[in-house]
């Protein structure tokens, strides 16, 4: 069981900076994120894009900003639980919450700061009729163990790196690999594109371009997919597995069922200290909403800063908190 002062859900820029502001008040933080690395959207969606509205940085690449934040919070030794999604919330004591992740990790803290951005990143599921029926019965959105597909027929859809890479890997494992992509150009790494083309020429991969999967066939398990190709009528390909690889998209996820007041997919907060309707739970950054809300990293930093002041008073109601400038007091990390 992990114990901390503030459990931060979401390791994006706002969650990360909150560790710093909490650290100045001697509060320890632990972060959970469904992604395998810190940085949230900045790392996952746009690491190479410049951001122009971080004060003091006329331009900074999103990925670099995350690196700087990690450096800035290092003295406060935050804990990280990455690649796990905060699933369940329990109030175990008057001032103690327990959060359990989808992998069973248990984390306890008197205060929870939800800095979940747009939610947790999950694979994009094609809006094909009946797709839910065949999930785990022939349809996988994530490949965990390639051995599962040994001597099976597999259809992969998508045009990015993961579609290309898995096509290459599974070409040696599965009996038949078909790659379906909506156009003839691929956006993946050139090496991978060339490899797939050469496997297709050797007949090791069945490459179908300018086509999309538009239907699914089967009974208890998936039997075939229906393909729609430019200039061709619909045709069917028999298969054991269909693996759509269309990248990740954020979903609010389990947090939406925690009893928090939600409006338009965001958590309603009081701008006094960004508290939610549940005492001890705050929401900061893109995940919250209030009149005049702007989804800016800059605003999230402000929200996290005010929030930790309130969290301190919530945890230690009898202690006096005197505000100190870092320029005067310095930054004293944790041992």
């Amino acid at each position, binding site marked *: 069981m992990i114990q901390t002062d503030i459990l931060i859900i979401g390791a994006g820029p706002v969650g990360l900076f909150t560790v710093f502001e909490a650290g100045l008040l001697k509060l320890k933080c632990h972060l959970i994120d469904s992604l395998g690395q810190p940085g949230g959207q900045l790392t996952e969606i746009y690491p190479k894009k410049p951001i122009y509205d971080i004060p003091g940085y006329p331009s900074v690449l999103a990925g670099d900003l995350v690196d700087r934040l990690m450096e800035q919070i290092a003295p406060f030794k935050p804990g990280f639980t990455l690649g796990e999604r905060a699933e369940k919330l329990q109030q175990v004591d008057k001032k103690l919450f327990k959060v359990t992740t989808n992998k069973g990790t248990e984390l306890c803290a008197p205060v929870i700061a939800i800095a979940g951005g747009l939610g947790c990143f999950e694979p994009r599921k094609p*809006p094909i009729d009946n797709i839910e029926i065949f999930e785990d019965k022939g349809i996988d959105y994530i490949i965990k163990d390639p051995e599962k597909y040994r001597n099976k027929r597999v259809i992969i859809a998508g045009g990015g790196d993961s579609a290309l890479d898995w096509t290459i890997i599974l070409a040696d494992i599965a009996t038949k690999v078909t790659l379906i992509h*909506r156009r003839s150009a691929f956006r993946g790494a050139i090496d991978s594109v060339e490899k797939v083309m050469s496997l297709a020429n050797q007949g090791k991969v069945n490459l179908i371009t300018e086509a999309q999967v538009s239907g699914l066939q089967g009974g208890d398990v998936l039997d075939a997919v229906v393909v729609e190709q430019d200039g061709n009528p619909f045709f069917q390909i028999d298969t054991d597995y269909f693996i759509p690889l269309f990248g990740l998209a954020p979903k609010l996820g389990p947090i939406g069922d925690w009893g928090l007041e939600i409006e338009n997919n965001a958590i309603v907060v009081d701008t006094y200290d960004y508290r939610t309707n549940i005492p001890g739970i705050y929401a900061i950054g893109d995940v919250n909403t209030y009149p005049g809300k702007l989804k800016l990293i800059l605003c999230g930093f402000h929200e996290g800063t005010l929030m930790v002041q309130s969290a301190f008073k919530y945890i230690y109601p009898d202690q006096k908190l005197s505000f100190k400038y870092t320029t005067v007091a310095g930054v004293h990390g944790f041992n």
Partner: protein
Amino acid sequence: MSDTIHITVVDREGVNHHLEAPTDMSLNMMEVCKSYQLPVEGTCGGMALCASCHMYVLSEHHLPDKTEDEEDMLDQAFFVRENSRLGCQIKLVNELDGLCVELAKTSS
């Protein structure tokens, strides 16, 4: 009112929404749909990085060609057709008066 154009958006239930939009505020179609509370997510904020504003252009308007970024991003959308565009990449200009688009199905 030369700086206002009229646009029709067909939502995912097939309902037509007739919108008015200014052309002097450098808005794009994703932003206009959002401002009318139509179900367009625009997750990435208009950087052509999320494909959540995928729409079909139904009218005959001539739009600037897709950039490589937009084309790449459409790879992560579904049921992409010849007339598929990302709303965030359609800049509102006077020439687009009468534009008609249909919102594409999104990831379930």
